[in-house]
């Protein structure tokens, strides 16, 4: 029990990891659609930008993969439609 607690860190421990992940060139990344399971490269997905935010959809089933809203100097990113994102290290 104490051992488990000792192993638990706070969010600062992943700061470097997240910085590395989110700074990577993503056009050749591959996402798995949470709805239909299709795997598609970012370059192949369907994107709608004439909207209050950016909507990314699966080219196989048209379900939403990602929603990105940008405003007031902030981003809101929903990725519940992407089950797994695979990409090469930088």
């Amino acid at each position: 029990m104490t051992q488990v607690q000792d192993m638990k860190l706070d969010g600062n421990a992943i700061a470097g990891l997240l910085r590395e992940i989110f700074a990577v060139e993503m056009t050749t990344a591959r996402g798995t659609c949470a709805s239909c399971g299709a795997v598609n490269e970012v370059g192949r997905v369907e994107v709608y930008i004439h909207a209050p935010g950016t909507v990314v959809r699966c080219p196989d089933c048209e379900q939403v993969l990602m929603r990105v809203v940008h405003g007031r100097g902030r981003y809101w990113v929903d990725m519940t439609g992407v089950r797994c994102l695979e990409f090469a290290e930088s």
Partner: protein
Amino acid sequence: MRDTQRLMGFVSRGFRGKRRDTASSSRVPPGQYVVTDFPVLSAGPTPRVEVDQWTFSIEGEIDEPRRWTWKEFQALPTETVTKDIHCVTKWSKLDTSWKGVSVDTLMEGVETAAEFTTIYSDGGYTTNVPLDDITGNKAWVVYEFDGQPLQPEHGGPVRFLVPHLYFWKSAKWVRGIRLEKDEHPGFWESNGYNMYGDPWREQRYWGD
């Protein structure tokens, strides 16, 4: 020379301001500009619905859910309204004319414990609006724009119209109203956009 430029700048600024005043400023919420065309916004592919497949429903917190076919819906009393609309992407369009059915007509006699609603559409789009904001002559389910059948890119055959809130609340391709006791954030409201969306208070994003 410099003084002249300054004066010119002052004059043209003042002139522009005045023109906007007389035309519209009391009708244009903060941060918005007026357009004369009708921009098309879409978060997904345009659904193609045959009217003989189309229905409109009121469901959720209601003893007997209501449902109209296209033919039944066309037989309901209609209203033609002229409203200003305000898109959160900052354009406003004045004096838009719509024909459709008032939500009051659809809700006539409905007893409900609901205080909130989810407006839902073909293609999976949803938006949340308090019940008080779609009743009391504030919202319509419309199928004509400017005297013509509503085009698919603008939400045809039928869209929602709740013009006192930002236009993302006026869901395109609408298929029904779900009456709810609790507020459930819709497509944009769950990802940064404001739960209420009053253009006069610039309620664009979370925290506004």
